[in-house]
């Protein structure tokens, strides 16, 4: 089949989707299915790798190659797939427990190595498959089955971890905004290097409306900001709010007040290598700030790990006189017994 002719339905598998009705995962699946035909890869060159958790059932629902691993290790499995065959387009599907608790070590090292893998982090701030325990992204004070009196832990911020690990790409979207999700996923897939896309995802059973403050349709536009490279940071239902940099901190300002115009606002530069501003933007949280969506950081790395490995192998291979086991075994110090 011609790549151009592929449709979202072509990437659907014959498996029944088993997520709860109303789960945010359905919308994410549909956003991914919409993105896949636009990537320019054939079916057989796409691989989805996941760990364990609700989100990790994902590969079964996509008609590509797929690998459902063990808890926390999707990042490592995917690193092996991509390093073994850099021609493949590799996605990692993980959650806040799988990717940031048990798999946290693999997460940071995937990002640090900058392997050309696209990671989609389904963040619902809860353990769903084990039925409602707090996760590393649960808000402090969250009452869950394992924190009946509220958590006393600080949550992780996935953007902060990604940027702290020298990540080259971080984006954020919301499950209920599928069109934006598809756009962002296309950007993520285009990125050469590890891309991390955090999807704020609602768990309708164990953590319903955890992102209610920012997803509620009436107030949403005043509480989120869509970042676009090269555009000033304006948001709000009436497009009357903006972000300004002052004293090395981001400030929320109202356009028109105190003579502030859109020229005073920050202009989003997703491509700058300077991580400071991206970190500030990624860590913004409601109610003090709007939550940033879109591609927050997309700084092109020189070469991803998998490409560097291939280059190094070819360079050494080209210079060496050893091109077979026979050459190797007879190299160096040998002697003949006659």
């Amino acid at each position, binding site marked *: 089949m011609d790549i151009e002719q592929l449709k979202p339905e072509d990437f659907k*598998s014959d498996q029944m989707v088993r997520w709860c009705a109303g789960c945010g995962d359905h919308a994410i699946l549909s956003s991914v299915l919409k993105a896949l035909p636009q990537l320019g890869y054939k079916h057989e060159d796409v691989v989805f790798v996941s760990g364990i958790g609700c989100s990790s059932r994902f590969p079964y629902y996509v008609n590509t190659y797929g690998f459902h691993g*063990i808890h926390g290790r999707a*990042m*490592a*499995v995917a690193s092996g797939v991509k390093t073994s*065959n850099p021609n493949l387009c590799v996605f990692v599907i993980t959650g806040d427990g799988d990717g940031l608790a048990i798999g946290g070590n693999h997460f940071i090292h995937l990002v640090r190595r900058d392997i050309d893998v696209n990671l989609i982090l389904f963040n619902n701030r809860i353990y769903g498959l084990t039925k409602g325990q707090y996760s590393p992204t649960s808000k402090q004070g969250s009452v869950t089955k394992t924190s009946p009196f509220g958590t006393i832990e600080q949550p992780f911020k996935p953007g902060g971890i990604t940027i702290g690990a020298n990540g080259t790409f971080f984006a954020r979207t919301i499950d209920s905004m599928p069109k934006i999700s598809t756009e962002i996923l296309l950007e993520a897939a285009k990125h050469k290097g590890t891309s991390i896309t955090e999807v704020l995802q609602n768990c309708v059973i164990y953590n319903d409306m955890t992102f209610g403050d920012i997803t509620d349709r009436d107030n949403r536009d005043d509480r989120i900001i869509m970042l676009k490279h090269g555009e000033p940071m304006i948001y709000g239902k009436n497009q009357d709010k903006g972000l300004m940099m002052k004293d090395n901190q981001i400030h929320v300002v109202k356009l028109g007040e105190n003579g502030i115009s859109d020229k005073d606002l920050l202009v989003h530069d997703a491509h700058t290598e300077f991580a400071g501003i991206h970190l500030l933007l990624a860590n913004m949280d409601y109610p003090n700030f709007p939550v940033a969506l879109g591609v927050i950081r997309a700084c092109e790395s020189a070469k991803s790990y998998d490409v560097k490995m291939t280059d190094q192998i070819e360079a050494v291979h080209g210079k060496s006189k050893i091109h077979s086991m026979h050459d190797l*075994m007879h190299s160096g110090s040998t*002697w003949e017994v006659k």
Partner: protein
Amino acid sequence: MSKQAKVIEIEEVAIRFSGDSGDGMQLTGTLFSDTSALYGNDVSTFPDYPAEIRAPQGTVGGVSGFQVHFGHTQINTPGDYCDVLVAMNPAALKANFRWVKPDGIIIYDVDQFDAKNIEKAGYKSDPFEEEDVTGIQLISAPISNLTKESLKDIGLDQKSILRCKNMFALGIVSWLYDRPLEHAVKFFNTKFAKKPILVEANTKVLYDGYYYAETIEAFTSNFKVKPADIEKGVYRSINGNQAVAWGMMAAAEKADLQLFCGSYPITPATGILEELAARKDLRVKTFQAEDEIAGICTSIGASFAGSLAVTTTSGPGLALKGEAIGLAVMTELPLVIVDVQRGGPSTGLPTKTEQSDLMQALYGRNGESPVVVIASSTPSNCFDYAYMACKIAVEHMTPVILLTDGFLANGTEPWKIPDLNDFPEIKVPRVERDTKNWQPYARDPETLTRTWAIPGTPGMEHRLGSLEKMNITGTVSYVPENHELMSHIRDQKIQKVAKDIPPLEIVGDEDADLLIIGWGGTYGHLVTALTEVRREGHKVALAQFNYIFPLPSNTSEVLGRFKKLLVCEINLGQFANYLRMQHPEYPYRKFNKIMGLPFTVKDLTEAIVKNLED
């Protein structure tokens, strides 16, 4: 003049070089053993070094040793006891005196035997009074001072000068055993190509040591060990870790697959990863992962993507990899896990050898999780068993655990370079491109092996995973009957590997009453003990197992031929217990040591004779 010193021909000699971790004893021993191998002797070596990189100088904890055993006859072990101990300081004497033969020679650097070092080593008075040196020839050599004297005008600082003193010791021993010096000099020229002053210094000290030994009257004779009668061919020296790496590379070349090793450094297995990392010219891909789990998981990913994937580790790492090995069992992907066993439990004795991971390899996973377990038994046959591990893994689409140990990993011996044409083909069960209605878990009826569809192959898109799979289709299944069926299939699939493995053979007397049973790395010691006991007129046989699970098909038949079965292993009896479980019809006797050291032939012969009599 000592030039008239008489030359005595002897069959075999064991020499132990020992000194501080920083004294260069490993290099000294390696140069001596390589020289002996080049000369035509059969050789076996074993390094014995501390886990600490540089433990406090002069203490027993910091002593690094290297034993070389070479001979005119076949040499199967590095030797229990040494004919010559080179002790560069009192701590080296303290740590190694127990290994010196009653009529042996101790060559020591008298300059280092001052009050301070004697006390640091834990001696209260004169070490040679505290130790019972009756019958031992003591050679007091001012090695440090003569090295300084030798290099005083060369233009090196004092520290660098003293670093050459190991070559003085090598010179002495080279004279004593009539070894040529050319190999060492050639080595200096390569190693220090960019620092000619070091070539000059080391060469000068080496020769000065040699002439010193020739000149002093201390040695009444020197010895000649004639070349061994060895099979014709081209040889090189190889240790177990290198042999494992090369065996896997050979398998990849033969199967025409990309070799991928995801691994994490761990003593004593690291050498395999290092060897593979150096072989980019053969397009080996190595991935030094963030931990043991990532090591195996990257390899599983690579296996899914179509590489010949391996991971290398030691006991603690195997424990961490357990869950992922189960994943490879469930997904039925080829994977080789090399476990270079060391002393346990926990961190245990990282640099010491042991055979105590057998049960872990067989059963250390959740669920019914059968994998093939094989073990190599000499440093050089690590090549053959690594090759076989890869062959079985690929042809049967299964994880294979290859057990070696610290003794094999670091021990070296001459290796006749094989012709890869003599190795069996590796048939890759890749799905044919035009297969219609391919199913991920459809199987070969004979072997129960499924086929391998590699990402990038059109029309074969499928999902694998850790959840139970429906037979044939490979979809997720919770059907009770299917789980039972799949559990049996996974078990049967491994049992059927027995068809591909050679029958168990015995060495020694077919009509003996006693069969010595060993597995893995103890072969050299067991066969040497067998030879000695037979030389004394006893009848005895040896069966060394390389295939552990499944066992060779004729195991029961072989065991049934003997009245007494004595299972010898470096643990508390894991293989004996395993045999009891597999073949409960026979009674098993056990002989076990667990000191972090290889068997001694002496202990073994005593145990064998005792069991012959009982």
